[in-house]
């Protein structure tokens, strides 16, 4: 069975013992390799469980086929190619209460990639915000 290349135990991580060591110490793996993926760690909570189960793995599942979500005991571990976005207006509608992007940040535990907020949207992207792409200021209507 093939495993998504963004999975927690993808690639070399499936190997054990000598096979792992051979690849780990291989000459080509003695320098870093650029990656256009992003990683998001979400602390488990009532709201974040809903975001994961109902939105990212529910209504939005078809929007990003590279997204992998794994249950790692106290947290959800997510990895995707390109970016992951969470619209808190949509979360508010689902939760039936006001839920701002700062409410979301209460339980966002870690990010690998460039994470930022704009309005009520949280984004983590592989783009180099501030270098390749300007970080936008909030615009009023």
């Amino acid at each position: 069975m093939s495993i998504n290349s963004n999975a927690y135990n993808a690639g070399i991580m499936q190997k054990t013992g000598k096979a792992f060591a051979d690849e780990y110490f291989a000459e080509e793996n003695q320098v870093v390799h650029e990656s256009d993926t992003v990683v998001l760690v979400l602390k488990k909570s009532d709201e974040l469980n809903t975001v994961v189960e109902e939105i990212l793995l529910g209504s939005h599942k078809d929007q990003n086929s590279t997204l992998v979500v794994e249950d790692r005991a106290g947290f959800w571990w997510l990895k995707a190619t390109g970016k992951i976005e969470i619209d808190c207006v949509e979360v508010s509608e689902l939760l039936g209460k006001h839920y701002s992007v700062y409410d979301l940040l209460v339980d966002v535990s870690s990010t690998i990639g460039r994470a930022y907020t704009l309005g009520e949207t949280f984004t983590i992207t592989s783009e180099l915000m501030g270098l390749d792409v300007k970080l936008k200021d909030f615009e009023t209507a």
Partner: protein
Amino acid sequence: MAISTATKAATDALAVNRAPVSVGAQEVHRWMQSFTWDFDKNRTKYSTKYKMANDTKEQFKLIAKEYARMESVKDERQFGSLQDVLTRVDAANRVHPKWNESMKVISNFLEVGEYNAIAATGMLWDSATAPEQKNGYLGQVLDEIRHTNQCGYINYYFAKQGQDAAGHNDARRTRAIGPLWKGMKRVFSDGFISGDAVECSINLQLVGEACFTNPLIVAVTEWASANGDEMTPTVFLSIETDELRHMANGYQTVVSIANDEAASKYLNTDLNNAFWTQQKYFTPVLGMMFEYGSHFKVEPWVKTWNRWVYEDWGGIWIGRLGKYGVESPASLRDAKKDAYWAHHDLFLIAYALWPTGFFRLTLPTAEEAEWYEANYPGWYDMYGKVYEEWRARGCEDPDSGFLPLQWFIENNHPIYIDRVSQVPFCPSYCKGASTLRVLEFNGKKHSFSDPWGERMWLSEPERYECQNIFEQYEGRELSEVIAEGHGLRSDGKTLISQPHTNKNGRLWTLDDIKKIGCVFSDPLKAL
């Protein structure tokens, strides 16, 4: 009466930029930026060789009101869980005894790092010239205060609610004799707050936080959960909810200097020095705590390191910055070797020096030895058979008269301390990336375990003058040093540290150590 220039500027700005009618946080944030505070000619006490741009952004658009609301909800959730359900189900006594000991080290040491990060980010606030960047750093100052309190609280919780409080309650009093303390201060203190301000940001935010907090504060919660500890995930994952802003601060530090000429000259060297400084300590210590300080294993430490450090931090942070001239750290090859072997080397030495610690260590069981050999082929021949010999000689039994340190002496394997990282190493018996090199300066000998630290020392030797335990206590008998260094429990005779976690096993006392007659000697004197 004439108004001051500052008041006039504020009045004029208000006339042009009316306060928003809405109280939307992002709208208020946008409005505040319209004041265009001018820090361009900022004078700082904390200089840097880089010129930080003054239009750098803060990625989360925080204002004080939202910050305070967000953090108070985090605290409410954390303390609510700890003080209600976790206390009710006696969670602290369900933790595996081995993991209980690991948390004495992890939470006490993290507390020191968080405390020093308060100063580090205060310094960065003073150095930066962009208003938004200053805002990001200021938020981090407040976060670090919160984290210091959180780490202190979890130690208090373990001590009050759990098992074997000694070490959770007052670990810091053993800081003079514990061989892991000084290295921790180098990585968690000196690296964050001494020298060039941007170098400190690279150490703290770009490497310490963006790279090593993921294993230290996130992956650790998997190990905690597997070993029955539900308190650590509650607290540490809450700490990490602030770290993502700190990672962004570190990235924005790089953005702010990306177009400065100095970056092309110095950034790769500073990044490599920071990476080596942080990995030199975190890699072996975290690996040792996870694997040797747990009963139930999640995965080999080298895989945790490969995922979070090499693939994700290396590829997603450093790799992506390649087109701006950021290179793969030159020390990566040695760091990878350390990630595979150095925690095994360190545990061998830590167990040999156990009386000087503040936590209890346990030799690997036969079942664990099989796990190590399966995941690190060659482990048994190097380490496993040594542990079998130590166990056969009664290293856990106070009546045996045997300290594993004697094995190193009998077999002519001297233990040195690396002057720069302060990490102990045994060059004649190790598989990590350590080799002995010795230099003299001002009539004193200095040992180094690697060329990366040696280079840092050569550029500023006066920075690394910290005495190590062998220099400090040369000629002194071990039990005398333990008593002087507060390594005793409240009865005044039993050691805080022990070479086992057996609840029915007898605990070593000062008298048991004294009758062995172990005397400190400085291995550099013999060269």
